[in-house]
């Protein structure tokens, strides 16, 4: 069964182990494809990691003039093909999540391919392997989307255009406040 990245924002500690871990995958040429952002600096230490969201209909691949961005059989949106990519940056403008980066010297786009070198051998991607808090996990797609342990999101509304992603985000539990993230202090029984 297909496996996808699941990201539980609440657990992120902003340590960037995923960012460095990403450099360690054999197919990644020591260039990290991972992002970690501070959510509201000055107010809180909360952070979140962003890998490629692996859209079901990826705008990056659709916008590529030379069809350099392939989609693997399991739905993984791969990094640009070395032979085909012309470094035009169409993909970086098209991606609603701001994922593809372009190496200006090599004129090459690079992005998360879910560590295709590892997943094709049955191992989890590096980010999910090293993440010290289990913020990033490599899990069964059907299960995490339709039987999740907490509220999740994988459909995103960009001004009326709804994009479904294979990467799934676990949302802070604002209903029962079971794990912190509440208004005021005190324990919610």
């Amino acid at each position, binding site marked *: 069964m297909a496996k996808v990245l699941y990201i539980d924002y*609440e*657990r992120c*500690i*902003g*340590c*960037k*182990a995923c*960012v*460095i*871990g990403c*450099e*360690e995958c*054999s197919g990644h040429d020591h260039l990290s494809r991972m992002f970690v952002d501070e959510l509201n*600096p*000055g*107010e*809180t*230490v*909360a*952070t979140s990691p962003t890998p490629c969201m692996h859209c079901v209909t990826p705008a990056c691949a659709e916008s590529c003039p030379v069809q350099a961005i392939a989609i693997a059989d399991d739905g993984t949106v791969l990094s640009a093909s070395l032979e085909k990519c012309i470094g035009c940056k169409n993909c970086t403008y098209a991606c609603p999540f701001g994922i593809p980066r372009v190496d200006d010297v090599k004129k090459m786009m690079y992005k998360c391919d879910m560590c295709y070198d*590892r997943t094709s*051998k*049955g*191992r*989890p991607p*590096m980010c999910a*392997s*090293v*993440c*010290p*808090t*289990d913020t990033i996990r490599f899990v069964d797609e059907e299960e995490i989307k339709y039987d999740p*342990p907490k509220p999740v999101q994988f459909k995103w509304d960009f001004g009326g255009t709804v994009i479904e992603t294979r990467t799934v985000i676990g949302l802070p539990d604002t209903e029962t406040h079971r*794990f*912190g*993230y509440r208004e005021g*202090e*005190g*324990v*919610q029984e």
Partner: protein
Amino acid sequence: MGHIQNKDYSQRDFDPIVRDGEELISTHCCFCGMQCGMNIRVKIADQTVVGVEPRYDFPMNGGRLCPKGVAAYRQAELGDRLKTPLIRKNGKLEPATWDEAMDLIVSKIQDIQGKYGKDAFGIYSGSSMTNEKCYLMGKFARIGLGTKNIDYNGRYCMSSASVGFNQSIGIDRGSTNPWSDIKFADVLLIAGSNTAECHPLSMPYIWGARDRGAKLIVVDPRQTKTALVADVHLDIRPGTDVAIANGLLHVMIEENLVDQEFIDNHTTGYEELKELVKKYTPSHVSEITGVSVDKIVTAARIFGQAKNGMTMFARGVEQHATGTDSVSNYVNLCLVTGKMGRKGSGVATFTGQGNGQGGREHGQKTDQLPGFRKITDPKAREYIAGVWGVEESEIPGPGLSAFEMLQALGKEIKGLLLVCSNPIVSSPTVKDVGGYLKDLDFFVCMDMFLSESAELADVVLPSTVWVEDNGTMTNVEGRVLRVKGVDRTPGETKRDWKIICELAERLGRGKYFQFNSPEDIFNELRVASKGGIADYYGITYEKLEKMQGVFWPCPTEESEGMPRLFEDLRFNFPDGKARILAFEHKGPNEKTSKEYPVILSTGRVVFHYLSGNQTRRIETLRNFCPDPYVEIHPSLAKKYNISNGETVKVSSPRGSIELVAKITKITREDMVFVPYHWGKELAINHLTNPALEPKSKIPEFKVCAVKLEKTSAVVGENHG
């Protein structure tokens, strides 16, 4: 045999990937006390260290790593590694041969000891080294040099926890329970530990408990990433740990949430505690700590009502002038509620240094001999003298503790061997420490990089990095682990234990140091620790490998060690009863004043380790956090008209530093926070208070009084 007892839900069922032309060295991280398992990728052709590969099957971390762990291997190939011995000539450190360096060291040792006595040459060592090296340092000091003056940097780190555990439960193992027990707690009370940043690999265990519905109480003056996800965050004023614990004890006793049966059968001292905490009402404690009454009561009820629970703490509790009191008072929370000796019930301290546990067990602490034996105990001395093959009278008595030793440099101590430590960054009153080191007649330092301290040495000896040696480490749980290395010594580097054995040979003491491998040393350590509290006798390299680590005590060859202590509820005192001790709140040694109205507290960030001598050299980690900063609450910043990113001069009665302001609501309004991983003009330890805890001799790093001034100076220009 087998390692069923060490099975842990953090393990993952994958094999590592081995790439063409490479081999994997299955070892552990060199940084904190978690000692996460990892595979180091090595090119077979030339033995270069090229990367890291997850070690999914290791029980403690299941392949997970923090950024320090991922980047650790990158120090092995750094260009600024020391590759030859250095000798100071005309004021400058110049490359030299091993013979020149060793001849000079030996003649200086003989000079100094001949002139001023054996104790005039001291050793200041470290706890990031293997058990084998730590053991060897203690033995070399006592019967190689014949000096009483050896102590180590764990004095700044684990010593309060050590004293606190010993006086309360009679044994100093960092955790009474294996980490896999954490998941089964119904409540976790974490005090003075930013677990998320300092021990990130503990977080899956904490989340494991949370996923089962466990409550999390965090005691910390800052809303750290750990506190952010707590049910109750007790945001105490720094230095008021004794009071907050007394408040929690007060409420639990008042509301009858204690376990009277456990108290009656397994403890002594409860009545005194009950009497003392009577006056620590929630409102009184609220005044002392600055925490609301509501939160104190809520936390006490959650903790008291839970069936199983653990109290866990770290340097935030321990690095205080009353650090040992605080440790014992947090242990009291578990003792009065009977949370001991079961899955999910116990106490733990988060070990800071890689071998913070093993490093304090086998004799490099000035008051100890191997196996946690007291150096003043005639029986212990007799036994160790037998193991070493010397007369009991040849083993010196206790010497000076780490900071006291630094203060004695140039006075009663004229020569110093510094190993695996960087005290001019990590000690309080940095400027004074620089003066002490300069007052030495002779100063020799062993390191793999030219640390700030090494820069001041007369001779610097190049040692290997961790992944170039074999040995064992003992982690936060008391689990002894096997670390493995690449078989190489780049340039003229030598392994620390080899250097010490050679030095002993040249001093005419070689017959006591006939070791050809770390395993030789370990086998002697096993015998030396036999019958002691930290008994390693039954642990062999083979067993370590087979079981993926063995928890001490492991007294016999048949034993598989003891992951959980006190299952029989017999504590380590003759009567088997734990000691409930009662403490009044005294507060920090240095109080705020009109001139110095703000509290300064210091700590770690996730990207760096201790004095930063390793992590600041690794480019990625340095880029993630290049410089220290001062965290200031917006309302405090407003008082001084300081905006985010502006330069602020922070001064204590001992020194000052200029830092970039980071305005943030995560810190209390009456304090500022500065991370401590930098040296020279960026060392916050210019300001910290050298007041020592009377029992543990730990300096009070966590609280001192400072003033703030906005300045326009460029950071790094006028250093204090």
